[in-house]
């Protein structure tokens, strides 16, 4: 007879039991394992088990030169790969003191914001799908597809971009990208009303997300939550505004916040941010300065001895690159602060007391990317 023991005998009784969500589960974006302790249908404890997609990017950084690490950051958070790619370039530029031409900064902003919209579409629509709505997911996928086509045209790849270079970007944008982006902005603005109609007024969606999974301001602070999950709790913190980098100080945009802190608030923040990103892209296209897109940089950069820390805002929160250089061409240590890592850990605090079905909603609304957590 099979004698499979899955739970500790001391904790087991008639009502309390453990349930494995994942590692392969439709609601977990990627390979993620949630070990949930339940009393009936109410969550007592939740323990995310991570590490299934660990590839050792931080170790990889220690045995190759700075240029060779360039493709890696986009593979950490593959949904906002362009932002990570530019962020790594900015960190190395800061370490070496490399100037970036203004046109390149503008192109970085445009591509980053396009990538942010694509990422937010997955985040928001995948959340809706987690609650049982299939159609919004397909609609969001359609809009995201337009962005991937645009970015493919200039960067050459659709997901894991390696478009940034130290001192600028690889190539200038062309007329097709310019016109295509304008068309995309018009098209997307016309579709917001559809999303509003389809999701925001859906009674099931609202009942499943309102008041569920509230992150308080205090929890957000002590757990280090950043990104839309933090702004859904009423804290107006966005690295693009608070600690401006690249060309962001030159643009006029709002930081959307919601006070409620629940799943609905996080979803609303994401949708509002898409509109703000469109504003930024439009301003950047209007005032795109002429000039080169890449400054003269040696073929191999050799940063001076020292450390630097640079943060930027990915679609999920504040990412940080901490680079230690010993004065050689090979980095001594690169540490990446992954926002999903802290955001996911905050989930263990807010889930107890909710129904199991709400765990899926909370997990979807926090919108983590598993490869970024594991790195």
């Amino acid at each position, binding site marked *: 007879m099979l004698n499979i023991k899955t739970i500790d005998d001391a904790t087991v009784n008639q009502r309390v039991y453990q349930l494995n969500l994942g590692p392969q589960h439709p609601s977990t974006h990627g390979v993620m394992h949630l070990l949930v302790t339940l009393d009936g249908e109410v969550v007592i404890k939740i323990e995310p088990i991570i*590490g299934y997609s660990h590839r050792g990017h931080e170790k990889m950084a220690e045995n190759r030169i700075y240029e060779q690490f360039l493709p890696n950051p986009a593979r950490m958070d593959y949904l906002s790969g362009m932002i990570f790619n530019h962020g790594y370039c900015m960190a190395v530029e800061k370490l070496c003191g490399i100037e970036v031409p203004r046109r390149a900064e503008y192109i970085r902003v445009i591509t980053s914001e396009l990538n942010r919209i694509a990422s937010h579409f997955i985040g928001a629509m995948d959340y809706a799908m987690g609650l049982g709505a299939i159609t919004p997911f397909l609609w969001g996928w359609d809009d995201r597809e337009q962005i991937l086509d645009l970015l493919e045209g200039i960067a050459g790849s659709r997901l894991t971009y390696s478009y940034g270079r130290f001192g600028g970007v690889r190539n200038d944008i062309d007329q097709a990208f310019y016109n295509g982006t304008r068309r995309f902005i018009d098209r997307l603005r016309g579709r917001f009303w559809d999303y509003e109609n389809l999701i925001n007024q859906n009674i099931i969606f609202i009942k499943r997300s309102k008041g569920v999974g509230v992150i308080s301001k205090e929890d957000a602070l002590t757990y280090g939550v950043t990104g839309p999950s933090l702004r859904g709790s009423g804290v107006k913190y966005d690295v693009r505004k608070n600690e401006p980098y690249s060309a962001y100080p030159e643009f006029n945009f709002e930081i959307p916040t919601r006070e409620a802190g629940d799943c609905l608030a996080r979803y609303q923040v994401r949708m509002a941010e898409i509109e703000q990103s469109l504003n930024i892209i439009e301003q950047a296209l209007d005032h795109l300065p002429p000039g080169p897109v890449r400054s003269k940089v040696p073929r191999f950069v050799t940063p001076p001895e020292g450390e630097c820390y640079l943060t930027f805002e990915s679609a999920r929160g504040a990412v940080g690159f901490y680079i230690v250089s010993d004065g050689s061409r090979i980095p001594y240590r690169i540490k990446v602060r992954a926002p999903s890592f802290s955001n996911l850990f905050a989930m263990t605090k807010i889930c107890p007391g909710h129904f199991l079905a709400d765990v899926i909603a909370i997990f979807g609304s926090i919108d983590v990317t598993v490869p970024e957590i594991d790195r």
Partner: protein
Amino acid sequence: MPTAGQKKLLEELKNSLTQAVPEGQVEDSDYTRTGCHLEVRLDQGGMRRVAKVMLDKRFYLETITAVDFIDHFELVYLYSTYYQDVFRVITRIRIAKDATPFSVSAIYPGAIWLEREVYDFFGIRFQEHPDLKRIINPDDADYFPLLKNFGKTKFTEEIDDILC
């Protein structure tokens, strides 16, 4: 240029940090070059006293990491603010290879996972940590991957930095 709020915070923090950790060095840091406004250097301990000051001033813990300098470790704690005038404090703590530093997870619960990650990759055991075990690497692993004597680094084998 630092704003008025940042200057005020800098003075306040310098005072309270020198009171909290009199044995450490509290120095200004060049923000444009390093990305941090204030740097605290410590030997062996004092991370919990620094963390208490930081929580009082409403900083959040960005990350904890370590760097392996062959003969010693350097624990790095990064704190930053949510409010308009951004302010970042970096705490560097030099510890011996076999040291067991104290955990700050009682002050910042978010540190539970961050310290587990440091343990997982460097083998640094934190005292008074509620749940110190592997997090990303397999539970039965017998190695600490980010040590400089593990795998391919410039200390274990020659890396041709042009053709590697």
